[in-house]
């Protein structure tokens, strides 16, 4: 298939930005900054980033940068160690 035909096909399909295949890509990611400090004592805020099973949400869901995601994970793990948050489930 030549390049010209490909372009023609895509043109006829009206390429969608942020469509099926790019939803979770770099373009479609929703970026967020933490609204409150990511501290192990800030339990109310940390609780938002934990699933019903007690798992830490992924970057895809939190929208945090890599640096903030690492801070979040560390804060949750510290809180778990001190029995402030559960390892499993909703404590």
């Amino acid at each position, binding site marked *: 298939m030549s390049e010209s035909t490909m372009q023609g096909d895509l043109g006829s399909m009206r390429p969608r930005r942020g469509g099926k295949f790019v939803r979770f890509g770099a373009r479609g990611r929703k970026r967020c900054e933490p609204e409150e400090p990511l501290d*192990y*004592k800030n339990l109310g805020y940390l609780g938002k980033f934990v699933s019903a099973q007690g798992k830490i949400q992924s970057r895809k869901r939190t929208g945090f940068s890599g640096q903030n995601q690492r801070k979040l994970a560390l804060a949750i793990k*510290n809180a*778990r*160690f*001190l*029995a*402030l*948050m*559960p*390892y499993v489930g909703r*404590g």
Partner: protein
Amino acid sequence: MVLLDNREVKKGWSQVKDAVAAMLAKHGAKVISSKLWGERRLCYPIRRNTRGTYLLVYFDSSTGAVNPIRRELELAEFVLRHLVTVCEEVPSVAHEPEVAFDVSTIKEEELAPLPVVEREEVEVGEDVEPEAKAPAEAGSEAAAEGAPAAGEEKAGKRPRAEKPPRGETIDKAPKAEKGERGEMPPKAEKPEKGEKAGKPARAEKPEKAAEKADKPERPAGDKKARKKEKE
């Protein structure tokens, strides 16, 4: 942040707080603030405690003193958990006066049960130990007594297996082989290759090797003669 045992906290909040501060001061740390963070239910039981009291301490110390402090906290029985982290800036909240903490609010029912079971285990262990030792000693004595007796009985029959300890035979076996290989071949290989080459390789002892070196003639005959004498 330090998680404290409520049973100790109930005896006196200020005493526990001072004990923690003393631990830090012992290693040269300067306590900036030491405050109650909260008394709350734990998300999972720790040492049978379902509730605990959190003490938040901001302190300034050298990096070398942190590990000794952690060890000190680890060894303290009234400390259930502790976490030492780096704090870039001490928040202003830390300098505010501590909220009054009424220790009497801690319910006796929610405290961890006293370790009665552990005491029983210790007592049982003490009772069991002498019994366990007694047969062991008796066994060892019997073994110690039996060994020479058996040795005496068997001395006439099988002196080879008992006299030299295993380590020696293992250590000296290769040396004997080397010695035989170096010395024996011209004399031993010539008369009977098949038998004499195989036999000395199986059971070599340094003494025998030396004897063989001194008396290379008929090593198989010597063995047979010894066996007959022993029988």
